[in-house]
């Protein structure tokens, strides 16, 4: 038996709280008696009666803890337990009931209201860092959907995340899947052995869709933002995301999808990937490197599943005969997904020569500000500059629909290449309006349809509607691009 008495100066607690604490501690098997009380004369004389030595210099404003326990270890255990009980946060009540509680005005206050480990921020880019910083400071990972976030904000957020062991997905992160939960423009995936790190939203979606087509599941797809592998940001989130996936036992194979990193960053990422003890496939999309479909095939092989060529729906149309056979005829690519646009341009550039785009490949033409078509033309309607103050084209398809009508009416247009992206947050029925426009023309239209079996829009019905309108539909964006290129008559511009 050992008696311990401890005085904590100036620690006020009301007597009911202290009686509750005493009662909880007395329920411990290694404890004979515990009294936790303010050192009032009444309480001190009660301790006298219980045989404790009266502490010197205790005042009614001091807390006294008296323990009668088996041994020192039990005393320490009881004091530790008391510390925990005193730290225990009281219920976060407003006194009003949850119904009347004002909505949380910040991410930090929202994080206090519920058990949470993740925030999704889609506030305006100039200030999105405020909300993201709030999330990190509250111990949450954060996905930043917002674009037009200054790169200095991105770097500061990612450094803050590193010190707190949190992950920043984004900014300009369109797609993520965390523990099977789809965030932003995410496809419905089935659980499985693959973990994805994606610096590109639609690139990730293409991969998720093709893996789903091969019946390979994905547990996490961690977006990192399109600038993460730049020489400014230096892969801060990519490295953190790789570590996350390496630590997750459900993930056996990791794949990174991105445009090619800055060379010095590519080195760092490659070396880090090699150190993880799990296979990491680096799907850096560039001229002379595997396209997204080839990367998907590599992943499918790596997990030991069977790869077949992705689906192709419909017969399509033959190229129309130009009224002036001497006139040049061009490919027009109208994209909602930046990476899908990039991939199509890489493929088209192999045989069509110079291309024009608002996001041109190196050595190709930049479109004028009015985006007027100029030879073989590719427009990314999801580019930052086209989404300032307006929704992403996957939510609001109208600008692209208008452009499609114009291209189909343009005698210089030999074939239109489009992407249609399904999944959460994408337009509920992207096919109907497109089909109407496509059906009204004879110009060949090739569609890359990015979706999984379980996507809410329905993969098969969407494909069927587009085919019915006369389009040919591919599950592989690369295959779609190749078919469109093959349909172009006329030489390089």
């Amino acid at each position, binding site marked *: 038996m050992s008696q311990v008495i401890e005085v904590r100066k100036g620690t006020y607690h009301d007597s009911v709280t202290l009686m509750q604490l005493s009662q909880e501690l007395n329920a411990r098997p290694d404890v004979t008696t515990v009294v936790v009380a303010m050192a009032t004369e009444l309480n001190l004389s009660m301790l006298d009666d219980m045989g404790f030595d009266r502490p010197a210099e205790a005042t009614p404003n001091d807390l006294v803890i008296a323990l009668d326990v088996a041994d020192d270890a039990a005393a320490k255990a009881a004091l530790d337990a008391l510390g925990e009980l005193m730290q225990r946060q009281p*219920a976060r009540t407003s006194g009003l009931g949850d119904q009347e509680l004002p*909505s949380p005005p910040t991410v930090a206050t929202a994080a206090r209201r519920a058990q*949470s480990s993740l925030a999704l921020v889609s506030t305006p880019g100039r200030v999105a860092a405020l909300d993201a910083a709030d999330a990190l400071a509250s111990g949450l990972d954060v996905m930043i959907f917002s674009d037009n976030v200054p790169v200095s904000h991105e770097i*500061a957020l990612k450094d803050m995340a590193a010190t707190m062991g949190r992950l920043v997905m984004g900014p300009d992160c369109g797609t993520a899947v965390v523990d099977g939960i789809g965030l932003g423009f995410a496809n419905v995936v089935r659980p499985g052995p693959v973990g994805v790190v994606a610096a590109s939203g639609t690139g990730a979606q293409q991969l998720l869709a093709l893996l789903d087509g091969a019946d390979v599941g994905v547990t996490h797809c961690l977006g990192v933002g399109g600038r993460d592998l730049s020489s400014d940001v230096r892969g801060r989130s990519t490295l953190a995301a790789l570590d996350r996936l390496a630590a997750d036992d459900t993930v056996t194979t990791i794949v990174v999808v991105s445009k090619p990193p800055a060379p010095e960053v590519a080195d760092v990422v490659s070396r880090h990937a090699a150190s993880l003890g799990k296979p990491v496939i680096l799907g850096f999309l560039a001229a002379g490197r595997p396209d997204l479909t080839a990367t998907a095939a590599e992943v499918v092989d790596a997990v030991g599943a069977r790869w077949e060529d992705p689906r192709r729906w419909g017969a399509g149309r033959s190229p129309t005969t130009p009224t002036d056979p001497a006139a040049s005829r061009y490919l027009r690519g109208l994209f909602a997904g930046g990476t899908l646009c990039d991939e199509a341009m890489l493929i088209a550039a192999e045989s069509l020569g110079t291309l024009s785009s608002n996001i041109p490949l190196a050595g190709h033409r930049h479109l004028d500000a009015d985006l007027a078509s100029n030879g073989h033309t590719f427009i990314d309607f999801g580019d930052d500059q086209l989404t300032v103050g307006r929704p992403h084209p996957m939510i609001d398809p109208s600008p692209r629909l208008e452009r499609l009508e114009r291209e189909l009416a343009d005698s210089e247009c030999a074939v239109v290449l489009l992407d249609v992206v399904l999944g959460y947050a994408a337009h509920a029925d992207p096919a109907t309006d497109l089909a109407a426009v496509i059906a009204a023309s004879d110009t060949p239209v090739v569609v890359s349809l990015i979706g999984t079996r379980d996507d809410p829009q329905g993969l098969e019905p969407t494909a069927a509607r587009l085919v019915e309108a006369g389009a040919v539909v591919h599950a592989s964006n690369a295959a779609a691009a190749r078919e469109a290129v093959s349909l172009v008559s006329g030489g390089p511009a």
Partner: protein
Amino acid sequence: MTAPTSTSAVVTAGAALFAEELTRQGVATVDVDWRPPVSGTEDALATVMLDPRRVTANQEALARMVLARAQLTDVRPAAEVLDLQPGQFLHAGPPIEWERASGPLRGALIGATVFEGLADDPEAAERLLARGSLSWEPCHSRGAVGPMAGVVSPSMWMLELYDDVHDRYSWCSLNEGLGKVLRYGAYSAEVIDRLRWMTDVLGPALQAATRARGPIDVLAIIAQMIQMGDEGHNRNRAGTLMLLKEWLPDLIAADLRRADLAEVVRFVSGNDHFFLNVAMPACKLITRAASGIPGSTVVTTMARNGTDFGIQVSGTGEEWYVGPAQLADGLYLGGFGPDDANPDIGDSAIAETAGIGGFAMATAPAIVRFVGGTVPDALRTTARMYDLCVGENPSWAIPVLEFRGTPTGIDVTSVLRTGQLPQINTGMAGRVAGTGQVGAGLVTPPMECFTAAGHGLAAAVPSPHLPGVVRT
């Protein structure tokens, strides 16, 4: 396809679509009622919020506020404790010159000048003050606080409080009661006579009792008064009684004339706000403990001089950020009305800065009636203040909120991001010098203070370091 299940909610800020899509997956969300930050502060806020020092600096500020102590250790004349020389005064709020001084501040300075015998009558006092022969500076500049006009002159007796954790003192004058009193800008003969009696009798009596009694733990009294329906700013009944209870045995045992003893006890027990002047320096010790932490965005002072409202924030120390003081919304005494009221005045908003007063409104529903409010309004006010603060003070538990601690540590960035202002409970002084109190009610600081503080904090952030070295 089965929906993924998770016990963890996702916090969403921004497009409602993404929250809806999570709900569709069976994932709980907590959706932020997001508003753009106060216009013009966006870039300053980014600089401040991305400052890598901020999070730990604010945690440190909160820890210091929760750890600070406040014991009433002595009662002594201002000349002695604050080194206040004849012709020098202290006042509430940020610094201000005579030309811009409000009626109640002028009235209190006039009264104090007469009280100190520097002028024979109010007119002569006013001439001296206007001519610049006398000087005044904020109470806060010497670590003191003063309610309403907050004027302190060398002969006034001060309550002296000590924080033994941070080894620091704070002071406040003795509360004169309600109605025609110096702190509300009144300076008639009855005001001056009362001040004389406080100096001659009250101060020495309380000194004797305090010294005999030994240090009184003021924070423990505040903890208890919060459980007894006082919020420590506009309602101090329980606090006053508990303080008197601490003093009484030693007052009675002190060598006082029986009539003086009776008058001292009658004066303290008859003034429900006597404890305000004890709570205020206790709050000052709490907030001052959090002052001067680089990178911290916690407000450490809110104070008004009747013309300007000024705040100080931890990260920039003693720097004042000012804006125009507002008119309170409340109830008026006797025949007074809104036209008679002076804009907000006093250092007493130190109570809210430390987490009580308007922030503890939930515990004192009796005073929401000052603005025709309801009990749910009181609860809602405290609920909103949690949203502006970095944390809670577990020592000050509000019973009706399941003993949740009071909201503590106003974060400048939260105010600027939400556009919501701290709620202050306050008395109202008459606009015209010499009038006295005209009412009591609720008031908020002007947003300008927080806007200026945001820019001040941003300017104090060191230039961002060059992009760091990538891990290998």
